[in-house]
């Protein structure tokens, strides 16, 4: 960006400033532009498109586009639309801070190679994605050596920079990311020694267990955890232990696996540093903001979507949430945002549920996760006798419940629960 446009950016008030040019941010920006809003996208990295740009495997877009795409294909479609709608996108534009000046004015401080600048916007869509959990916060002790990567970092090295991290690998975590990375390593000729999972069952989709592990003969060690990393300069081995029901290591169950690489796929945490500074309400179970059905946070006019809101299973959900946020921002600017909100509460066996508040005035989609797996489950909102039967529910797979406007009319609050159907 040139200096002159930088000063233009300053004087102008955008309808919406989008922070983060990933799936959620771009889908939101496109929707907002379609609704006639004046939008700017601020992306810290060197290109827009977000995490999917480094995911060369298929599995993206099944819901959003009704097609099975690779990550880059998915993002390219959004980028194409961004170009068509003429939305302003800045890359290498790092948002340093957000100031909620009043309910119709926010200031966003941005660092760019062209200079630092303050952007004024009526609304904000915060879509900064998630960060990966590292070895320290999951309590792994031992040596601090090279050869330890998060899955995303290993993926960036392999598929963006074309570098092989190591030759014998232990993967921590059997969510879809762990499973996919196990296969990615195997495809390049690495010896994947094991995928280690603390839960008694794999965290990812059954389809991925088959296609990523079984087809490659990669062992899955459930009810195990890696407790130590050992090595002088680089990883030489990991120590693992079996765990009991409360995920504590069982004495004398330790074993060793020799390896030179550890890839951590131990979960993601919403990346909400900038929002935290703005003092919004946080849900301790999603670790993201508390939102209404338009993904609006406790600060009016500040919206959040994608993995910054809550960790989503699919990029499709991130994109949908971005769109909902754009619709909300549009209502907000027009002064038509509902003011009466009904809480959605967590009932039996529900670990998290969002949005946290609904208006009851339109169809909404509810996202949730269970605490424990259940076979033949009934997912229900008892207050309105809404019941959905599922063959099986797992903590690793989000439950989606579509609520119709007429189902929620006139209610005060709703509670989601998940019980055994038998």
């Amino acid at each position, binding site marked *: 960006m040139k200096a002159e446009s930088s000063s233009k950016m300053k004087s102008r008030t955008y309808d919406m400033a989008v922070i983060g040019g990933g799936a959620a941010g771009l889908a939101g920006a496109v929707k907002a532009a379609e609704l006639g809003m004046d939008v700017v996208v601020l992306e*810290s990295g060197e290109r827009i498109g977000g995490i999917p740009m480094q995911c060369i495997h298929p599995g993206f877009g099944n819901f959003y586009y009704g097609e099975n795409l690779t990550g880059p294909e998915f993002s390219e479609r959004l980028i194409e639309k961004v170009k068509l709608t003429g939305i302003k996108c800045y890359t*290498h534009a*790092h948002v*340093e801070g957000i100031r909620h000046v009043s309910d119709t004015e926010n200031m966003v401080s941005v*660092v*760019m*190679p*062209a*200079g*630092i600048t303050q952007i004024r916007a009526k609304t904000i869509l915060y879509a900064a994605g998630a*960060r*990966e959990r*590292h070895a*320290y*916060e*999951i*309590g792994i*002790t*031992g*040596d*601090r*050596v*090279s050869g330890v*990567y*998060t899955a*995303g*970092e290993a993926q*960036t*090295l*392999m598929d*963006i*920079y*074309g*570098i*092989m*991290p*190591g*030759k014998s690998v232990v993967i921590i975590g059997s969510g879809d990311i762990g499973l996919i990375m196990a296969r990615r390593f195997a495809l*390049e*000729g*690495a010896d994947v020694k094991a995928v280690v999972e603390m839960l008694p069952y794999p965290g990812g989709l059954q389809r991925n267990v088959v296609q990523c592990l079984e087809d490659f003969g990669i062992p899955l060690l459930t009810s195990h955890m890696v*407790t*130590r990393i*050992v090595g*002088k*300069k*680089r990883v030489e081995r990991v120590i693992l232990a079996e765990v009991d029901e409360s995920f504590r290591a069982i004495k004398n169950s330790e074993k060793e696996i020799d390896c030179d690489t550890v890839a951590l796929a131990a979960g993601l945490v919403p990346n909400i*540093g900038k929002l*935290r500074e703005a003092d919004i309400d946080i849900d301790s179970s999603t670790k993201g903001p508390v939102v209404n059905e338009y993904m609006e946070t406790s600060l009016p006019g500040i919206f959040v979507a994608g993995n910054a809101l809550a960790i989503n299973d699919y990029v499709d959900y991130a994109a949908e949430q971005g769109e909902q946020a754009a619709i909300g921002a549009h209502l907000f600017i027009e002064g038509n945002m509902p003011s009466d909100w009904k809480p959605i509460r967590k009932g039996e066996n529900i670990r998290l549920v969002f949005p946290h508040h609904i208006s009851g005035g339109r169809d909404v989609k509810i996202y949730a996760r269970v605490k424990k797996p259940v076979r033949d489950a009934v997912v229900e909102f008892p207050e309105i006798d809404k019941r959905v039967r599922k063959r099986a529910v797992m903590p690793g797979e989000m439950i989606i419940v579509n609520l119709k406007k007429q189902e929620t009319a006139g209610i005060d609050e709703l509670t989601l629960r998940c019980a055994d159907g038998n």
Partner: protein
Amino acid sequence: MKKSVAIIGGGIAGCAIARVLSKYDLDIHLIEKEADVGWGATKANTSIIHPGHEEDAAIHPLRAKFCVEGNRIWRKWAEEMDIPVSWPGELMIALDDGGMETLEHYLKLGEKNGVEGLEIMGREEIKKLEPNVNENAIAALWAPAAGLIEPWEACIALAENAADNGAKMHLNTEVKGIAVGDGKLRGLETNRGFMKVDVAINAAGLFADEISGMAGIDDFKICPRKGQYYLFSDDAMPKVKRIVHMTPTEKTKGVYAVTTVEGNLMLGPTAEDLDFDEKEERSTTEEGLDYIWENARKFLASLPPRNKVSKMFAGLRPEPPDGKYIIRAYESPWGFVNVAGIRSPGLTAAPSIAEYVAKLMEEKLDLRMAEKEGWNPFRKGMKRFSRLSDSEKQHLINRNPQYGNVVCMCKEVTEGEVVEAIERIRKLGAGITMDSIKFRTLAMFGECQGSFCRSRIASIISREAGIPLWQVSLKGDGTEYGIGDIKVLQRREKDEG
């Protein structure tokens, strides 16, 4: 001709000595086996500038003197060399009557050592100074002179200032032998060849016993004593306003809670004696970390959630026999000086030790210590972009747009800073590794521990140093980022099959 002086070891002691000796008309060489300075005991410790009330001058006269003096000198040095320090003061907490006696004991020691401002106070006053102290605290010894320092930055600052004043730096250089002839020191054998020197100062930390042995003085052993730590992420609450710890025991000053100069809560250390041959054993253990947690709970009111940790790490104290510093110039071999066993409070003591060593050289080795002209006491630290005002930021970006490219999102470190760090690393002759950049810029130090930015930093190193990305190392040989390009294993398989 100028006398040549080699300092073996680029920890806080060696770097402080290099800085002080760079005032004089000497030919100074600092020799360090690692890729950068400060990677021994100096980078992993509690980072406290102790006031000196915990040193018993009757048993350890040198330690007591160096600690009290060091605390004063650091104030001046920190200013001259732009080293991040803070002076929060320290509370030694007593939980019972036995603890009360201990407080009295240290109050007396401190007064004897000339430590200023010491005061024993009750619960109400403690609460005013430190809201996060446990209800069980009955009294505390308040030592306002206690401070905190960024230890690696202190070490880098000393080395840079010494180099600016003409000291030559030899990184990645390991002393393997010492040549002695006719009762005199002749030179050093290193992995990079022989170095003829007149004086050698052994500041090799944990390995000072081995170096001393090479010079024929083998009457002591250095024992590694491990200390483990928890370091919490920026947003982990509650922090502490003061340096807080419990009354010490024989072996250790006990577990501390500090909020580092960087603003992160840190808890530790343990005190675990290892075997003499375990001088590289810096692993953390569940037992050690549990010990810290249990002890911190005794004197703090509340702790952050344990998963808010951003790092667990451990350092090794170089313990001499009976805890006595071995600082001595020898008649035979003439020219050999030991600065060995610099255990806690060595970080505090280093400036004073360095001045003492200069005196030893004059008095014991009869060296003419003529001050040279134009010695520059000042050194400017790295610009930390995130801490600048908007106009300073704009100014930097105008000069160099790389300062407008944020590469580490957690700590908001820019490409410009990484490049500046690389220039400084080059000037010292240090290795351009991810750790040497981390310690200079704090990139990869934040909440995500580098999972986002490590590859970006590595690619800047790759570009600036002209090496393939996979060869960029975390901390020198054997710690490379990758093993080759993406197809390296498939090619190998083909070659073998």
